[in-house]
C-alpha cells in the first residue's frame, strides 16, 4: 500500500507517460534518485501498464454497418441546410430576422401621416378666438393710444359720458337689445357687448362705446389683441413638433437593429471558430 499523496501519484504517472515538462522532469528525477519508495512505486506502475498493454483485441462478433433498407433514405436536411446556410449560426439568422423587422417598423412609422386629430380642434378654437379679437380690435381700435393712460382716459370718459348716451342708444337700436342696455347704469361684461355689436354698428358706436365704458373695458381690450396676434402663430409649432419624433425614431430603430445583428454575427463566428479548432 503506497503512502504517496495524490499529487505525487499524479506526477509519478505523468512522468511514466512522459508528459512532464523538462523542468518538472528534472525536479522529479532528483527526488526519485533519493527516494527508494518512490522508485519502487514507479516500477510497480510501469509493470502494471505493461500488463495492460498485453490485453489482446477482441474480434467483432459481426459487422456493424447500417442496413440500407432501414437507413438508406437521404438524411433529412433542415431548410437551412438545403439553402446552403447550415453553417450559419442560428443566432445570426435570428438577428437578421430581428433587424428586418425593425427596419420594416421604422419604415412604417416614418410613413405615418403627419399631425393629429387634436390639432384641427385647437386651430378652430384659436380661429374663433382670433375672430373675436379682431372684432374687439375693430371696435376699440381708435382707443389704442388712450390705452396707455388708463387713468386719464377714465376722466375723459366720464366727461364725455352725457353726450355719448345718444350714440349708445342709436347703436342699441341698430345692433340689438343687449348692446343697448343702459350704458351707464348697467353695463354687461365687455366680452358680451363686443360679441353683440354687429359689423354695421361698429363705426357708429366704436368710439362712443369705448369712451362710455369703464376702465375695465379699456384694460381688457389688450387681451383680445394679444390673443389675436398669438393665435395664428400657435398652430404652426405644433404640427412640426409631432413630425420630428418619427424620423429619429425610425433611424434609431434601424441603427439598433444593425448593432444587434453585428453583435450576434460576431458571437456566431466566434463559436464556429471554437468548434472547428
Amino acid at each position, binding site marked *: 500500500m503506497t503512502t504517496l499523496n495524490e499529487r505525487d501519484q499524479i506526477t509519478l504517472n505523468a512522468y511514466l507517460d512522459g508528459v512532464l515538462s523538462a523542468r518538472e522532469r528534472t525536479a522529479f528525477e532528483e527526488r526519485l534518485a533519493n527516494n527508494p519508495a518512490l522508485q519502487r512505486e514507479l516500477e510497480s506502475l510501469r509493470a*502494471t501498464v505493461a*500488463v495492460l498493454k498485453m490485453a489482446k483485441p477482441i474480434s467483432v462478433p459481426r459487422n456493424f454497418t447500417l442496413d440500407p433498407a432501414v437507413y438508406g433514405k437521404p438524411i433529412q436536411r433542415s431548410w437551412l441546410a438545403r439553402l446552403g446556410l447550415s453553417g450559419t449560426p442560428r443566432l445570426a439568422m435570428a438577428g437578421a430576422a430581428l433587424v428586418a423587422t425593425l427596419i420594416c417598423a421604422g419604415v412604417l412609422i416614418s410613413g405615418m401621416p403627419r399631425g393629429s386629430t387634436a390639432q384641427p380642434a385647437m386651430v378652430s378654437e384659436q380661429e374663433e378666438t382670433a375672430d373675436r379679437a379682431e372684432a374687439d380690435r375693430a371696435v376699440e381700435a381708435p382707443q389704442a393710444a388712450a390705452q396707455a393712460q388708463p387713468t386719464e382716459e377714465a376722466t375723459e370718459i366720464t366727461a364725455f359720458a352725457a353726450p355719448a348716451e345718444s350714440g349708445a342708444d342709436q347703436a342699441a337700436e341698430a345692433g340689438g337689445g343687449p348692446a343697448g342696455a343702459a350704458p351707464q347704469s348697467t353695463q354687461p361684461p365687455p366680452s358680451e357687448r363686443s360679441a353683440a355689436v354687429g359689423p354695421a354698428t361698429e363705426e357708429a358706436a366704436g368710439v362712443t362705446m369705448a369712451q362710455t365704458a369703464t376702465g375695465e373695458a379699456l384694460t381688457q381690450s389688450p387681451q383680445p389683441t394679444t390673443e389675436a396676434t398669438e393665435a395664428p402663430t400657435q398652430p404652426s409649432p405644433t404640427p412640426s413638433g409631432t413630425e420630428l419624433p418619427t424620423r429619429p425614431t425610425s433611424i434609431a430603430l434601424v441603427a439598433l437593429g444593425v448593432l444587434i445583428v453585428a453583435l450576434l454575427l460576431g458571437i456566431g463566428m466566434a463559436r464556429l471558430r471554437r468548434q472547428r479548432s
Partner: protein
Amino acid sequence: MDEAGLIRDAQKGDLNSYNTLVLHYQSQAFNVAYRIMGDPDSAADATQEAFISAYRSINSFRGGSFKSWLLRIVTNACYDELRRRKRRPNASLDALYVEDESSADSSLASHAENPESYAQRMDLQAAIQSCLQELSEEQRAVAVLCDIEGFNYEEIAGITGSALGTVKSRLSRARSSLRDCLQAYGELLPASYRFNAGSTQS
C-alpha cells in the same frame, strides 16, 4: 482511405461511404465498448447504438479527429447502456473462450503456441478484464483509452468530455487499483512482469 472524402459524402447522405467508415473503425469501437461493458453482448449493443447515433448526427462533426469524435459516442453509449442495465457485468472465462472460439484454432495453428501458454494467455486476458471491472466506469474508460488503446491525455479528455486534471486524477487512481488487483494473479503474470506484493509498501 480518403477519410475526409468519406465523411463529406456521408454528411451528404451517402450510406455506403458511412458504412466504409464503420468497417474501418468497428473493431476499435467494439473493443473499447467491450472493455467498458465487460461482456460481448452488451458491447455489441452499445457499439451498434453508437454507430446509429453517429450516422444520425454526422452533420454535427465539424472537423478534427473523427476517431475521437466516434469513440466519444461509443463511450457515451456504454455509459447509457450501463445505466440502463443497472448491473455490474461479470467477465467470465467461458465468455472469453466463446468470444475467441472462432479464432482459437486458427490462433493455435498459426502461432504454434503450446496449450499451456495459450491457457496462461487466456487467464491473463481474463485477469485483466476482471481487474478492469473492479474500477468505476469513469476510471475504467480512462485506463482502457490510455493503456489499452494508446490515446494521450488530451485525446482522452476530448473523448470522455472531462478536464485534463480529471483525466490525470482518474488514471492515477485506476492504475493504483489495477496494480493492487493484478498482484492477486501473481502466478498468471509473465515472470518478467510479476511485481513483488510487498514492493510498494514504504
